[in-house]
């Protein structure tokens, strides 16, 4: 699949998909989307990059080991659940607050961090499987 057109388009395509995946992740609470779907989109973005340039390029682009990303995601989700204890409510109770950034009111919640964790777990796990498969015997 190392055709010129594909190789030229792949970085743009995957960057856009990554951006879109974050967008899908963040809008998920009110519109179709969420961490799981966002994660799948991001994983396909990396898959495209991998098909075009090979696994090592993706590993460089990701910087962290994909499984480490996955692990951090799980940690983040669990942590956002544990935060509830600090406010003496049951595990995983959603906590909400809003902050003003540059004059815009942004709602923040533990639920959002939970969803980001889901996103990271999905991206990390699926990408690491795909990469491991792509690396063939030379990996």
């Amino acid at each position, binding site marked *: 699949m190392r055709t010129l057109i594909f190789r030229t388009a792949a970085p743009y395509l995957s960057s856009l998909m990554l951006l879109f995946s974050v967008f899908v992740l963040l809008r998920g*609470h009110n519109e179709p989307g969420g961490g799981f779907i966002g994660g799948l989109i991001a994983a396909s973005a990396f898959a495209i990059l991998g098909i075009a340039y090979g696994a090592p390029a993706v590993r460089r682009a990701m910087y962290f080991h994909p499984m480490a990303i996955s692990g951090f995601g799980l940690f983040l989700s669990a942590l956002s659940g544990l935060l509830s204890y600090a406010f003496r409510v049951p595990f995983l109770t959603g906590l909400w607050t809003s902050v003003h950034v540059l004059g815009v009111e942004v709602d923040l919640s533990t639920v959002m961090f*939970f969803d980001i964790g889901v996103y990271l777990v999905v991206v990390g796990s699926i990408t690491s499987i795909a990469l491991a498969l792509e690396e063939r015997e030379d990996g």
Partner: protein
Amino acid sequence: MTKLLASARRVKTGDRPLTFFALILPFLAAAAAPILTRILKHNAAWVLALAPLWIFSHFCGMLGAIAGGGTVSGGFDWIPSLGVRFSWYMDGLSLTFALLISGIGTLIVLYSGGYLKGHEHQGRFFSFILMFMGAMQGLVVSDSFLMLFVFWELTSITSFLLIGFDHRREASRRAALQALVVTGLGGLSLLAALLVVWSATGQNELSTLLASGNVLRESPFYLLALILLLGGAFTKSAQFPFHFWLPNAMEAPTPVSAYLHSATMVKAGVYLLMRLNPVMGDTAPWETILPLFGGATLFVGTLLAVRQTDLKLMLAYTTVGSLGLLVMLTGFGSETAVEAAVLYLIAHSMFKGALFMVAGLVDHETGTRHISSLSGLRGAMPITFTAGLLAALSMGGVPLFFGFLAKEEIYAALAIGGGWATLALLVALIGNVLMFAIGFTVGLKPFIGPMGNAPKKAHEGPILLWLGPLVLALSGFAAALYSPLAHHLLSSPMASAVAGQSLTVEISTLPHIGAPLFLSALTIVLGIEAYLTQAKLRAGMVSLLAAIGWGPDRGFDQAMRGLVRLAVRVTRIVQNGRLDFYLTVVFIAVALALLVPMIMFGELPSMPSWPDLRFYELTVMAIAVIGLGAVVYAKDRLTAIVSLGIQGFAVALLFMLLGAPDLSFTQFMVETLSVVILALVMTRLRLAVTEHRPFGQKALDITVSTACGVAFALLLLKVTQLPFDATLSSFFEAHSKAIAHGRNIVNVIIVDFRGLDTLGEISVVMIAGLSILALIRVRAKGHEKVKTTRQEQAPCEH
């Protein structure tokens, strides 16, 4: 913890926070032990021993209240919704045990400081033994059943760690595993027993159960509860035929043997029987089973002890015998028998702990535990000799020692005439004679006579080593000397707790003429005889055992081997490594599960009317059908995979058209990724490009897939024809925005309402990812070795 403290209620008496602290202190000390040991080396023992010492003094503070007939209890709610509490209850029985555990524990910590001096894992050892202490401590003061069970299992686990401490040796590992399997099975039995008792009486705390009188005895589940309970108690307390793990556990370092296998863990079973004697004892099964097994254990244990030549093994088998004696006495249940059991338990903890430590000390200084190479050490090790001799005198039941009191009471309890009692008396007499001989073999023989041919030149050990045995041996003497005080503080309250009524132990060291004294004298005379002729006895036992040739220990190995063989055979059948076989089985099961009930109960859906479909909906469906056709008729595998994608996308499109954007979205992504990953897997598998199945296989596959498809279609049709229960969807519709601040109900359910499920799911995703990664690596590294195709299972889909 703060939550526990905050929700405290129903506090009865006592200094609750301090007792709670006493319960967790061993675990805190265990956590600190490795660091302390790194800094202070073996001298960390002095610091660490402060923990059990403080606990000992804390429990000593309760002596007065409990000797006065009171109890100390307290606790916190643990899981209020299930009515489970973290609660403790202390009467004479618990308190005596608690004092033995913390008191002997203090000495053992010091002793291990000397015994394992310079060992690279000494810190770990301290940690394990303190954890064990905490578990044992918790076990004997637990009130709620759940806590009792948790601590019971903790003693099994920590003892596994301790027995297997020297994990590089095969024998240690085997002994540890054996102890874990045997006591772990017993633990399950105990859990079942507690559940039965709970459901039969409605009580899940010992204190309320003890106050419930005859309820349990009169319950139809009494016998079941008793048998399950004995399963737990007999395995833990090494009763015949489960006794074999205890001598094997002598693979552990001597401090472990001295602590777990004489004074504490193995007595947990006896503790449990004594604890429940007031509500379960005094029935025909109790008074038959317990003396029977106890007597058999006493007999077998002491006979096997005679055969040994290793100091520790001799002591281990006499411990088995002693535990049998305790169970037997508890089973008799008369007032004197209970008093005898209590006295013997206290005496045994002291002299056996001391003798084990003496054996370890001799081993440490001379390099051997073999009885024939040990003699003449009295000059080199005078303090050890003193401790050993004092402990042996107590074990032999010589007047002026606490063991004598116990022995007198045993004979008084059994010398009452009648067939059963006389038989038991005979067994007890033989057991005591042999234990007398063994006691002196360990405590006297290595020290007298000419110098032996030990590997090392012996000299007295450091204070850390001799302090423990000496204190324990002396306390056996002191307890007898001040017997009225000891009875007032320990024996009487404990006997009262065991009997369930107020008892006063009065026996003193002053000899009183009667049958017991005569029997004691007979024991001593015969014991001296046995001591002098032990070589002959040993030879006799060795040839007898060789003639039998089989024992439960070998049986254990056979059972384990059989288990492994069975597991291999079952695995070969169930997991034969052929992915197509797995899939066929799964899909046949799915088809049957769906079709059989539907046809059997006449729940087939009625024929639906032709729906009003738009032309584009029909087009999408047609695409799906074309995709499927392409899969079936594809010439090579890659085309088939891609065609499957066509069908998947068509279905996703349908979801979109029918108003499920989230589902459709996910379906699109999953389809894309599965095509990519499946294609990658296929390129790695190096399969033939096309595949040819034999006709029979093809027919089977077609049948199974058609059946599955038809079954699902029928199921879905039926589902849509039933009235729709809108409770959940209207709940989410109403509350999604109001409570969880989100309009996308699907997402709100995933991240908020059912967040815990999602947390579980992402953990599964990650674990699946890790395992697939590991499998691919195995494959990549061992090209030739691993040839099965099961590594490359389809990646997990959600």
